[in-house]
C-alpha cells in the first residue's frame, strides 16, 4: 500500500540545515499495523506528516497505492488525503465549537456525502465507539478518553483505508489508553491499515511491526506477528 524509498526531508533556515528524514525506505502492506518509535526529535512525526500527505518531501520516492505521489501538489494531496486517510492526534484536536456528533460528521460534509447518509454513518460510528450517548455534548464536557474516542470516530467515519495515529494515548491514563488501543486493533482487524507513532513500548506491542528511528534514519525493524491476510486494495482516488 505504501512504499517509500530514500525519502528525505530537510528543514532549512538562513543559518542551519536540519535533516529530519535521511534517505529512509520501508514498505507498509495493506491491513498492516505498524508502530514507529524513537526518541523525541528523531523525525517520526515528520515522517507521519509526510505519510499523511500533510507535508511534502525533499527527495526520494513515495508510492501510495501503486502511484508515485512525491511530486503531488497540495491540492492533489488534499484530495487523496480526504478520501483515504484518517488522523488521530495525541491532543485529540476536536473542534470546541462543534458537538460530538458534528465533529464526527465534519469529514463527511467535506466529502460531500448526502445528509441522510451522513446521519446513518455518524450514528453507526458513534455506536461502534460507544459514545452515542454523548453525541450532543461539546468536547470540553468529555473526559480525555471520551474525547479520544470521538477523535477516533471522526478518523474512521469516512471508512478510510489508512489511519495515522500520532501518539494516540499520550494524553490518556492507562485505562483509557488501553481502550483506544483496543479500538485501533479492532479497526485493523477489520482491514484498516494503521501507522502509529508512539513512545510507548506497551502500545507498540499491539502492532505487527515496529520501525525504530534515530536522527531521521530507520535503525531497526522488528516483526512482532505476521499479517494473517492481505485484504483487497480498494483505495478511493479521484483518478
Amino acid at each position: 500500500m505504501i512504499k517509500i524509498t530514500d525519502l528525505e526531508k530537510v528543514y532549512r533556515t538562513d543559518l542551519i540545515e536540519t535533516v529530519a528524514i535521511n534517505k529512509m525506505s520501508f514498505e507498509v502492506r495493506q491491513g498492516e499495523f505498524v508502530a514507529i518509535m524513537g526518541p523525541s526529535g528523531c523525525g517520526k512525526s515528520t515522517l507521519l506528516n509526510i505519510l499523511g500527505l500533510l507535508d511534502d518531501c525533499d527527495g526520494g520516492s513515495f508510492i501510495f497505492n501503486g502511484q508515485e505521489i512525491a511530486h503531488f501538489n497540495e491540492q492533489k494531496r488534499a484530495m487523496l488525503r480526504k478520501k483515504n486517510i484518517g488522523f488521530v492526534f495525541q491532543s485529540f484536536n476536536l473542534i470546541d465549537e462543534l458537538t460530538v456528533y458534528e465533529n464526527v460528521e465534519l469529514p463527511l460534509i467535506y466529502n460531500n456525502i448526502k445528509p441522510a447518509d451522513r446521519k446513518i454513518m455518524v450514528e453507526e460510528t458513534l455506536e461502534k465507539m460507544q459514545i452515542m450517548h454523548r453525541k450532543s455534548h461539546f468536547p470540553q464536557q468529555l473526559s480525555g478518553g471520551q474525547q479520544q474516542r470521538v477523535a477516533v470516530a471522526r478518523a474512521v467515519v469516512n471508512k478510510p483505508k489508512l489511519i495515522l495515529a500520532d501518539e494516540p494515548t499520550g494524553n490518556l491514563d492507562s485505562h483509557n489508553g488501553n481502550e483506544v488501543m483496543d479500538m485501533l486493533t479492532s479497526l485493523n482487524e477489520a482491514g484498516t491499515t494503521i501507522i502509529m507513532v508512539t513512545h510507548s513500548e506497551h502500545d507498540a506491542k499491539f502492532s505487527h511491526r515496529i520501525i525504530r528511528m534515530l536522527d531521521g534514519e530507520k535503525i531497526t525493524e522488528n516483526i512482532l506477528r505476521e499479517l494473517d491476510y492481505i485484504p483487497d486494495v480498494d483505495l478511493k482516488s479521484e483518478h
Partner: protein
Amino acid sequence: MIKSYLKTAWRSLKRNKLFSGLNIFGLAIGMAGAILIAILLQHMLSYDRFHKQEDQLFMISNRDKLGGDLYTWRYTPKILGSTLASERPEIQNWTRSRTGQSFLFTVGDQKIQNKNGNYVDPGFFKMFSFPMVTGGPNKDWDAGTGIILASSFAKALFGRTDVVGQTIKLDTSSLVTVSGVIKDMPENTDLKSDYLLSWAYANRFGEVDSSWGNNSVQTYVKLQKGTNLSAFNQAIRDVTKSHRDDITTEIYAEPLKNVFLYSEQHNGKFDSGRIVVVRCLAVIGFLLLLIACINFMNLSTAQSERRAREVGVKKVIGASRIRLIAQFLIESVLLSLFAFIIALGIVLLVLPAFGNLVETKLSWHFGWTGWLIALAVMVITGLIAGSYPAFYLSSFAPVKVLKGSFVRMGGKISARSVLVVLQFTVAIILILTTIMITQDIRYVQNRDTGYNQSELVFSSLNGNLRKNYPALKNELLSSGAITSMSRNMSPITQRFSDGWGMTWPGSNKADEKTDFVRYSSDADMVKTMGMHLVKGRDIDIYKYPGDSTAMMLTQSAVKAMRLKNPIGAIVGDNDTKWHVVGVIDDFIIEQPFDKIQPMVIEGPDSWYSTIHYRLNPAHSVEQNLATIKQVFDKYNMDYPFEYHFADDTYATKFKENKKLGQLSMLFAGLTIFISCLGLFGLITYMAETKTKEIGVRKVLGASVAGIIGLLSKGFVKLIIISFVIAVPIAYYIMHRWLSASTYSISVQWWWFVITILIAVIIAILTVSFQAMKAARVSPVKSLKTE
C-alpha cells in the same frame, strides 16, 4: 453546509464573548454613523428632486464681470421671465419667485406674523409638484386679491383647511380671499412657503418694475422635453444685453436639482457650497465604515491563534481553503448582520437628536431600494471586514499549527500595526479638523465688527410705525428705556441691497462695475450702533433738513472711490445725487468670514425697514423691554411687539460652521471610540499571549510599571507613526479650508501638540487597564497558565 457554517460561526461568537462584543459593537457604531450620514445625504441630495418634471425644470442665472472678476448670481430682472417666454419656444412654463413680506395675517382675533411666503406666477402651479388640497389659483388669485395657504398655516389661522373664499387681513388694511389650500411643502425644497401670492398683489403696491438693471427675483422655466441645454443657453445668452445696451450681463439656465447643492460660485460658476459638505460627509461616512472594518480585521486576526487549530484540523480532515474562506466570510457577514441590527436601533434612537444637531427634520424613508442598498452595504461591509481574516486564517499550514509551531503574525511591520496606524491616522486628522473649525470660529467671533452689539436691539418698521415713528422715538427716549434710536434699511446683520453704476468725483468707466453695499439712516446711526466716526458727522435729518440726500461712506468705500477729501463729494446712485457728510470705520454686515465690502449709507431719500435702538444700561434689560413694549403697542397696536438682539442674530452667522464643527467633533469622537475598542481588543489579546513572558520577567525582577510600559509602548509608537502620517494630510486640508475664507485664523503649531497629546493619552488610558491587570498577575499563576 451553510447551516454548519452558521452554527460554527454562532458558537464561535458565543465562545469569545469579549471579542465578539467588541467586534459587533465597533462595527455597529461605525454602521450607525454611516447610516446617519446616509440619511442626511439622502435629504440633501433630494432637494427639489421630487417634482414630476424635474428634468425639465431650470433656474435662470446671471453672469458678468465685476471689478475684473467673473461672477454669477441667481437674482434676475422681474421682466426676464415673460420676455424669455415670449422669445423662446422651448419654454413651456415660467415663474418668478421672491420672498414675500413679513405680513401680519389677521383672521378675527387670530394674528400670525413671520410666515414664509413667495410671490409667484401662475406657471408655478404647473411646473412644481405641490398638490392642492382644495381650490387653486383662480381669478381672484390672478388679480392679486386671492391667496393660497399651506394646509398647516390654514389650520393655524382658521382651525381647518376647507377655507376657500374666506377673508384674511394682510397687515393693517389689505384684504385677500383664500383661493386654495396647498399640501404642506416638504422640507427638501428651496421653494418652501406657508403662503403664495401672485405678482399682481405686489404690483398693486407699486412693485411694477420693467428695469433690466434691477435683479430682484428668481426666474424658473420649464423647457420642452428633450431640449438641448447647451443650445438653449447659447440662444438665451445675450437676451439681457439685447434689451439694454449698457448692460454686459449674460444669462444661462441651470438644472433646478443643482441649485441647492451648488450654492456658492467661483469665477462665474456655481461649483461649490453644500456639495462640499455632501462630499465631506460622504468621505467621513466611508472612513467611519472603513475604520470599523479595520477594527474587525484587527480583532479577528488577533484571535488567529485561537482559530489556528480549528483551521488545521479542518484542513486535515478534508476542508479545502475555499471552504474555510467561505466559512470565515459567512461568519463575518453574520457579525455584520448583528452589527447592522444594532446600528438600526442606535439610528432610531439618535436620529431626532442628530436632526437637531444638523437643524434638519430628518426622517427615515429608505423605500425598498434604500433597504436593498443598506443590505448590500451590510453584506459588503461583512465581506470586506472578513476578507483579510478569512484569507489569513485559511492560509495556515495544518502541519505547523497542529505541531504547535504556528508562528504569530509578526515581521517588521505586521499587518495589524498597519491597520492600527490607518485607524489613528483618520482619527488624528478628524481631531485636527475639529480643533481647526472651533478655533477658526472663535477667532472670527472675536473679529471687530465695527459696531457695539451689546444691548443693541432691532425691530421691524411695520404697520403704523412708519407713520408714528417720530412720536415713538420721542416717547422711548423720554421713557429712559433707550439711549438712542435710528431708522435703517435693514437689520445691522443683514444686507438688503447692493449695486454698481455709482459715480463720484474722478470715477471712470471701469468704476461703474465696482459693487457697493447700500445702507440707510435717518439719524443717530453712529451713536445707536456704537460705530466709529472717522471724519465729518453722522446723517441727521432732524438737525439738517438737507440730509435727505446726505451720505456716509465707510473707509473701504473711500478707498474704492480713491477720494482724498470725501466730505462734500457728490456720489450718484439711482438717479439721486448724494452729498457725503461723514466717513465711518468699516463694519461687518454680511459674513464675518468674508472681506468687508465698500459701503454707502444713504439718507432718508432711500428707504427703511428696520428700527435699531440701544437699551439704557442704567436699567435691566427686562425693565427696558417692558417699557419699550408698552410704547410699541401704543403706536402699533395691530402688530405684536417683536425684537431681536443684534448679538444673537450675529451669532447665527456661525451656525453653519458650528454645525460642521459639531459634526466633525461627533465623528472624530466616534472614530476614536471605535479605534479604542480595537486597541482594547488588541491589548487584551497581547496580555493573554504574553502571560508567560510577563511571568518570567516578573520572576527576573521586572516592576509592574515596567510591564505596563512593555505592553503599552508598542501602541504609543503606532500612535506617533499615525501622527506623523496624519500631519501633512491634515495640514493640507486645514490650509485649503482656511484659505477659502478671507478672514480666518492661520494654522497654529499648538493644535498639533494638543492632538498628539489627546491621541496618546486616550491610547494609554485604553491599554493601561488591561496592561495593569496583566502586570499584576502573580508570576506563579502566569507561569502555571502557560
